[in-house]
């Protein structure tokens, strides 16, 4: 797999979120996959320090199934758009680590929320395809007072 393949994988990952194709997005995660939005800059501890989100496949499944039910807070529904920078890609023993600055907008009704940060993916090779072992989202304003963020960054 070339760097171009890995970049394409990341672009597609974001596009699945933007198109609300959550089941296909979920399938990109490895069995031990984790979606992590730290609360502190440079945070390393997920156990005894809290996070904005820290979700294994069980919690991701919960979030997705809830969104599909159309909960109260999704009347009207939210929509999102990722705008991505070309990722930096480094090889690891069993896959790749990538670093990708992004802009993210989430709208609901008349309100739009902007977030900016970097996404760091730990990708692992499974059956000759990349799978997400960790998607870490470093928000530029991770420690700010934030309103509801309802979709996946």
């Amino acid at each position, binding site marked *: 797999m070339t760097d171009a393949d890995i970049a394409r994988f990341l672009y597609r990952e974001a596009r699945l979120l933007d198109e609300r194709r959550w089941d296909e997005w979920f399938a990109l995660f490895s069995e031990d996959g984790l979606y992590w939005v730290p609360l502190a800059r440079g945070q390393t501890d997920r156990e005894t320090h*809290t996070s*904005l989100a820290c979700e294994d496949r069980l919690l991701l499944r*919960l979030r997705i*199934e809830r969104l599909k039910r159309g*909960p109260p807070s999704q009347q009207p529904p939210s929509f999102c758009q990722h705008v991505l920078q070309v990722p930096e890609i480094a090889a690891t023993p069993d896959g790749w680590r990538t670093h990708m600055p992004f802009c993210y907008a989430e709208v609901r009704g008349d309100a739009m929320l902007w977030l900016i940060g970097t996404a760091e993916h730990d990708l692992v090779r499974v059956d000759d395809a990349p799978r997400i072992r960790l998607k870490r989202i470093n928000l530029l304003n991770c*420690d700010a007072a934030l309103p509801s963020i309802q979709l996946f960054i």
Partner: protein
Amino acid sequence: MGHYHDNPAAIRALLRSDAVHRDVYLDPEIFALEMQRLWARTWIYVGHASQVPNIGDYYATTLGAEPVVMVRQEDGRVRVLRNRCAHKGAKLVNTPAGNLGRFFRCPYHAWSYHLDGSIAAIPKRDGYTHTRFNETKAAAGMAAVHTAGHRGFIFARLSDDGPTFDGYFGAALSSIDYMVDRSPVGKLQVAGGVLRYLHDSNWKMFVENLNDTMHPMAAHASSAGTAKQLWAGKPADAPKPMAIEQLVPFAESYDFFEKMGVRVLPNGHSWTGVNFSIHSSYAAVPEYEQAMIAAYGEERAKDILGTVRHNTVYYPSLTVKGAIQTIRVVRPLAPDRTLIESFSFRPVGAPDVFLRRNVTYNRLINSPLSVVGHDDQHCYRLMQEGLAACGNEWVSLHRDFHEDELGQRDQTVGGTSEIAMRNQFRAWSMFMTQGAEKERR
């Protein structure tokens, strides 16, 4: 001056025994009066002593509309000062926490202050010699506010007049005791970071909701109900992830919440979960229970561990979850804007699993990304917008109202009663109207 400022009767008329007028949530004048009368004359939560362990450590926040700073003094005590330079009013500390060394120093004209707020030095002080400066409040430096604490929980009262600390909280302090005593050495430490969630709704909607046990079944069906479904069919002895253990009970029945019970006390304080709560069935940790028995004796340890109050409201600024050692701090910003800051604690001397549990709970429930929080927050906003509708200006608080609850000081009733909300508004009305009378004297 608006409609309410000089008119205690108009404020009194906003509350019936079983309903409240929409202006309490919508009116900017009421909000400003709340800051002056309720938030300044009552005891507002500032922070926890463990946030300022060493001399010179500070933690800055706002109480109502005012910036304050909590500082560890040279003598080891904690004081709360107004975060304002005595000269031209610049805020003296502008980061949430840090260490001052031995002085505050204003970045503007370099006035400096001792940790107790008194002036240490003013450059070229002789410029004030022939002035009236020494007769002003500024000569005393940073103004201190009344500070009191209970087991490390520091509160302040901005106004010189108002109730004493013990008189204000009374028996409600027992929820802090039970929370702290879950540490075998009787000590908590703030740990795990603070979640800061902006709400576009009035602060009272949040506070009322903490003892609103009729909403989880409806508002949280999509999160707790889904968690329940995802876990359904797993063998009974399958190890339960903390997230499942913590989320599923939100989907408990009306009957469950009714039997939980609610207790109300004077000055707006209350707690749900008198008998048991959604925190009752977390996995046992035998080595910890042994340590608790060793520390407190069998009977008291049983009492501490068996007390699993759901939410205690320290009206108006703090809500406490003792069984899971997390607190939510209410910071009103505008009639339709409120910041909720949620902290977790490490029970000192207890195994790490408890901090992990508390931190997990805080994230699952109190984060701006929480699937539980989203639906609560959304419902508050719906009220904020819906109350603009005319025709009926009253918000119903009738559920389980009985005339004879009026005038009683300490009551425990079925958990789905709206008595806690009525109790909050009775305190609200008292402070909001007493305030008017005091200002006029």
